[in-house]
């Protein structure tokens, strides 16, 4: 008994390691052997959010059309900036031809973009901007920024509340990951958007880290202290959907208007059903598509503009159905 367990276990260990590599080998489908297509890497913040899955879908469609070998990678958690940096470092080692990056830290990813520069790999920034001052200080160059104007999206949401409520109204803001460029711009835009409407008061503004369960918990807590709240702005849909659940649980569905950001499929359904007020649509699929298309242009030596805007619009009950494309 005792003498037989160990060889068995070592066998299991070997099988596990070799098996995993075999799986891995199948997965990549023979990257370097016969494939002469250009290799485009898309590194997003995380793949457990519909927003980035949509972006992945758009990028994959474009990759098929343009005959590009697309590699999509992400950290397990959006807050793990260092892990995203490691992924980029590792991809640099595989000599990808071009890198599209949705940075999970606007300043923190600047050093690794510098590394890509030194390795001669062009970098396209998607969705969230790199911090301009830091990039300039480090002498880091990027080919373009493909994304929506998050500030403008926030402003549109604010203006929507202004049109919606004409009497004195209490509002709540659910912020994203603190210190993050995208979330900051959205919230800043929102605050500027409601400035012309003195009847609107933000009574609480709390971070919920872009996560659905945090959105739920924070909202649930705020409902206890802020009983007269009529509107919620969440700087992404995950938090908005979490907040919506909390409102549903409190039996106040319809009494509190929730406006989110990103217009993911689930949010569109809630809007169409009349449970959620609106969401700012960023069109991540278009971002992914534009990222790959412009990556190919950069590879071919074509000039691309510094900023490629992706249209922004407010999805409301009138425009929610059908979803885009």
């Amino acid at each position, binding site marked *: 008994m005792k003498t037989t367990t160990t060889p068995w276990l070592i066998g299991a260990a070997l099988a596990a*390691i070799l098996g995993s590599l075999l799986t891995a080998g199948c997965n990549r489908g023979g990257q370097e052997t016969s494939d002469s297509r250009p290799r485009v890497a898309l590194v997003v913040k995380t793949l457990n959010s519909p927003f980035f899955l949509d972006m992945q879908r758009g990028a994959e469609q474009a990759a098929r059309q343009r005959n590009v070998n697309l590699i999509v990678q992400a950290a397990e958690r959006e807050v793990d900036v260092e892990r995203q940096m490691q992924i980029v470092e*590792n991809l640099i*080692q595989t000599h990808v031809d071009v890198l599209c990056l949705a940075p999970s830290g606007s300043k923190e990813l600047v050093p690794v973009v510098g590394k890509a520069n030194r390795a001669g790999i062009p970098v396209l920034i998607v969705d969230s901007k790199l911090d301009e001052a*830091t990039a300039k200080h480090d002498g880091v160059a990027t080919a373009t920024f493909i994304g929506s104007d998050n500030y403008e999206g926030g402003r549109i949401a604010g203006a929507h509340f202004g049109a919606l409520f004409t009497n004195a109204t209490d509002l709540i803001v659910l912020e994203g990951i603190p210190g993050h460029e995208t979330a900051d711009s959205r919230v800043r835009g929102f605050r500027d958007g409601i400035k012309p409407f003195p009847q609107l008061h933000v009574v609480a503004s709390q971070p919920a880290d872009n996560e659905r369960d945090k959105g739920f918990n924070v909202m649930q807590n705020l409902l206890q202290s802020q009983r007269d709240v009529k509107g919620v702005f969440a700087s992404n849909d995950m938090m908005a959907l979490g907040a919506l659940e909390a409102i549903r649980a409190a039996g106040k569905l319809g009494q509190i208007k929730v406006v989110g950001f990103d217009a993911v499929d689930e949010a569109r359904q809630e809007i169409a059903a009349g449970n959620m007020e609106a969401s700012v649509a960023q069109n991540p699929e278009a971002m992914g598509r534009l990222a790959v298309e412009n990556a190919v242009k950069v590879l071919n030596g074509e000039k691309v503009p510094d900023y490629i805007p992706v249209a922004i619009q407010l999805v409301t009950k009138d425009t929610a159905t059908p979803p885009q494309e």
Partner: protein
Amino acid sequence: MNWKNLILHHGRQLGTLAGLLLLCLALTIATPYFLTVSNLLTVLEQVSINAIVAVGMTVVIITAGIDLSVGSILAFAGVVMATVLQREVPVPLAIGIGLAVGLGCGLTNGLLITLGRLPPFIATLGMMSIARGGALLFTNGRPVSGFSDGFRALATSQFLFIPMPTVIMLVVYLACHFLLTRTRFGLYAYAMGGNEQATHLSGINVRRHKTLVYGLCGLTSAIAAVILTARLNSAQPIAGMMYELDAIAATVIGGASLMGGQGTLIGTLIGALLMGVLRNGLNLLEVSSFLQQVIIGTVIIVAVLVDMGLKAQKK
């Protein structure tokens, strides 16, 4: 030392090393990008942060304890140091202040456990939340970014072609290996973990040394914070989340027992390298991030199963 002795005393580490070499061999066959000097240096640089956090964790686990607060202490020490750095304070002084914050948090853990008689799990669970909250309060939730080139050189420069984070990691390992094997602090750590009562009855001040062990763990977290801050050119209050689990994994893969009394830093370094190489290799192979998590979890479980199998055979 001859071969027989080597196998007798370091059989467990040799087993992990064999696993690491096997993995490297498999990756060399599977992808042409793995076995290059620049990729191997990249791996060494990437593992440095987890490996340094795992040093303190190993010493704590040797004493039959656990420290869940390393990631939060890392964040707290990082933002304090970064804030000081931006006040034009000399770099060594700022680093010293950051390390002092880590040491202080660690010693507080130690005192809660020894004088407060709290179980290590509870005391460090509390500290995990306190230090994280402290970091968020200290910065109002914002990252502290942008440092002098002199400070950033700690992550970006090289020493004899070796990335500076790797050099710092090796220095920390050498120093702590020396501490564990050549000083009585080390002897007491193993003795406390093996049998605290017998150690007390041998005339050893168990409380004092246990407190110091947790202090060391806080200190190594703060050292990791220095590298992380220099590497990202930014100190984030939300940095280091779940780092405690990676550190525990490296320690356990390296042969330490959560029951205490066992473990070596050589083993932990190999364990950290194994995890780093695996992550690197899975990226090179373009494995999806979801499957990566499954594979890493499997490796941890298999490593411990093999370890238990080896121990059962010894008896």
